[in-house]
């Protein structure tokens, strides 16, 4: 009996201690965050550091050499500025459109006067589930240059001559912004709807008693209450805008006429892979990272988000 008892304790003790180790309050949090820490180290920090290192090198198989800052000296060329200005215009347009339109739409969908709001919610969200590449192929067909293409038929109703959508700077930008808007509108509406759900009804009731109209309620209650969400949406839209690549790639996979569709990430791709200049590509990437960093900090400071947090 005694022997048996000993043997059972022996066999169960290590198990219990392993279990105990994993369930102890000190360890468990680390166990749970470890996948994310690991993926951060492996998929973000390591590439980040090696990207910075690569930006000071020329990289050929078996012949990687440090060349100082000469990759950075080459960056300030007309093509880079073209890419930068395209990206900046794109960021400004998408940020404005993808903040204001979803906010207004979300407010409307949230109001009790709109019928079938569930149907609208669903249909506005569906594009987000489509891949940009697939959607882009359809957009490319819709905006073909022939007179019979959908878009040219539509503008034809208004007496406009058929346009070469993919070949003009303005129409090219229009296509990219339209595709991004179509795709991301639903997601941003979702953010704002979530924000609206947290606005206390009493505020509106109180405002109604004071005689506020729809516009005043929106201006003085909805807008301020949505500020945290707005800041968030603006931030991610700016970052997504600077990282934009697919929206340009689907329209011009082999490079756009006059670089009307060249974005900074597109330029990284072009130089890094097409021209086999990974070091230069990495240098552009580092510059892009700095640009996003500075703008995000600026924007968060201006909107007061950082202050509150601190």
């Amino acid at each position, binding site marked *: 009996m005694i022997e048996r008892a000993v043997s059972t304790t022996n066999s169960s003790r290590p198990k219990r201690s392993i279990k105990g180790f*994993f369930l102890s309050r000190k360890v468990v949090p680390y166990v749970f965050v470890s996948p994310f820490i690991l993926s951060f180290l492996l998929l973000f920090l390591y590439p980040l550091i090696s990207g910075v290192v690569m930006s000071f090198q020329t990289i*050929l198989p078996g012949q990687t050499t440090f060349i100082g800052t000469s990759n950075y000296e080459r960056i300030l060329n007309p093509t880079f500025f073209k890419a930068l200005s395209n990206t900046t215009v794109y960021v400004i347009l998408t940020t404005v459109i993808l903040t204001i339109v979803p906010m207004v739409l979300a407010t409307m969908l949230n109001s009790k006067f709109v019928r079938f709001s569930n149907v609208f919610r669903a249909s506005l969200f569906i594009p987000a589930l489509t891949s940009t590449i697939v959607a882009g192929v359809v957009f490319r067909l819709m905006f073909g240059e022939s007179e019979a293409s959908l878009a040219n038929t539509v503008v034809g109703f208004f007496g406009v001559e058929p346009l070469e959508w993919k070949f003009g700077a303005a129409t090219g930008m229009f296509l990219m912004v339209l595709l991004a808007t179509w795709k991301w509108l639903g997601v941003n509406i979702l953010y704002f709807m979530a924000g609206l759900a947290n606005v206390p009804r009493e505020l509106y009731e109180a405002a109604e008693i004071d005689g506020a109209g729809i516009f005043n309620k929106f201006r003085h209650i909805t807008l301020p209450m949505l500020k945290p969400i707005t800041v968030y949406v603006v931030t991610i839209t700016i970052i997504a805008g600077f990282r934009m690549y697919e929206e340009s790639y689907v329209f011009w996979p*082999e490079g756009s006429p*006059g670089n009307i569709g060249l974005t900074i990430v597109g330029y990284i791709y072009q130089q890094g892979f097409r021209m*086999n200049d990974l070091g230069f590509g990495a240098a552009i990437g580092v510059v892009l990272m700095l640009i996003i960093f500075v703008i995000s900090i600026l924007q968060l400071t201006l909107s007061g988000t950082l202050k509150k947090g601190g």
Partner: protein
Amino acid sequence: MKKRSLFILLFSMLFVILAACGKGGGGGSSEDSAEGADATEVIGSESEDATELNFWTFNELHINIFEDAVKRWNEEFPDRPISLKAEAYPYDNMHNNLLLALQSGTGAPDIVDIELGRFPNYLQGEPQLLPMNEYVEPVKENFIESRFDIYAKDGNYYGLPTHVGATVAFYNKEIMDAAGVDIDSIETWDDYVEAGKKVVENTDATMTTLETGDYWSYWPLIKQQGSDFFDENGELTLANETNIETLDFMHRLIYEEKIAEITPGGGHHEEEYYGFMNDGGAASVIMPMWYMGRFTDYMEDLKGKMVIRPMPKWTEDGNRSAGAGGTGTVVTNQTEHPELAKEFLAYTKLSEEGNLALWEIMGFDPPMWTVWEKPEIREDNKYYQYFGTDIFDTLLSVREEIDSINITDKNPLVQEQLSTNVFNNVLRSENQSAEEALKEAEAAIENN
């Protein structure tokens, strides 16, 4: 107990999620995954002692050449059977995957097709490709030799050519007849312009289309006159007098003579153009021979209407063709069977049968010119049915007039400049003169 199983369940879920994430990021560069491939085929012997070789290409049709070669090889060498796993990826995708595989030293296939426009990228530094000299040197003189030079570095031949790429004029006979033009009377570019005026006057079609998103409407034209983007010493000559005048000439064709239009979709490989041409939108197009396959595959309504003639010449004794484009097939240094892979590749590309197959299957003008005169090449196939039986008469008549192109490691930059800035600014938006645009491009390439 319950708690523990829950614990295990949670953990296993986590790993599944992590594994799933890892897979998504792969993108298909590893040799086992066919993710993102347009087509995958395993060709050849199923016996266990067959050596497996991997082959990548950017053009699904190229697999057919290797399918044919594997069959012949396995019949001829039953003691050394090959099983070839062929994968076709989209152009950009394949070249990038290959570049990363060669940079990182893992994941590259045994044999791979590399397009001329990208080939210089793989010759930078120490080429991660195996030299094919032992197979090339004995047969070199039976080939249009320049086709080896464009895939060579420091005396080593790495790529085996797929075609000559002799540029020709494709005429739509129906439209030319309607316009009252005898195609065979067109000898010089002046004749071509005159004929074009008749076409525009008497029919709804335009005479020709000029590319803005690619350089096939330009490169052969300057090469015909002995010019190029680079001279024999590799010096950039992009903005030389001939090149400027030729670009001016193209501009004049569109805006002064009004016999040319900018290619719908920007290039002769765009859907928009296939539809336009198929409907009789243009009376002719200047493209290399390998473009035949696009007619047979994408423009079926023109069967029996198209004829192939030499390009118009610039001067009385000028060249009537020029070599353009190319695909060099290489063996990478990551292959586990270097000798077999090299021998098989040479068997496919350097043998007489292989070159005949290039014509029969693909409609390519085989780089081994000795087969051009063989009776086998006159056997009926879909290209003869489509374009008439005089294709090789045309080709043989211009054989001596196909100049080699000069390739340097800056060719990808030239292509980039031409297809994004130069053609667009000069031909489409007209905001630069030919001279300004080419000078600017030249400066951009030099500063890179």
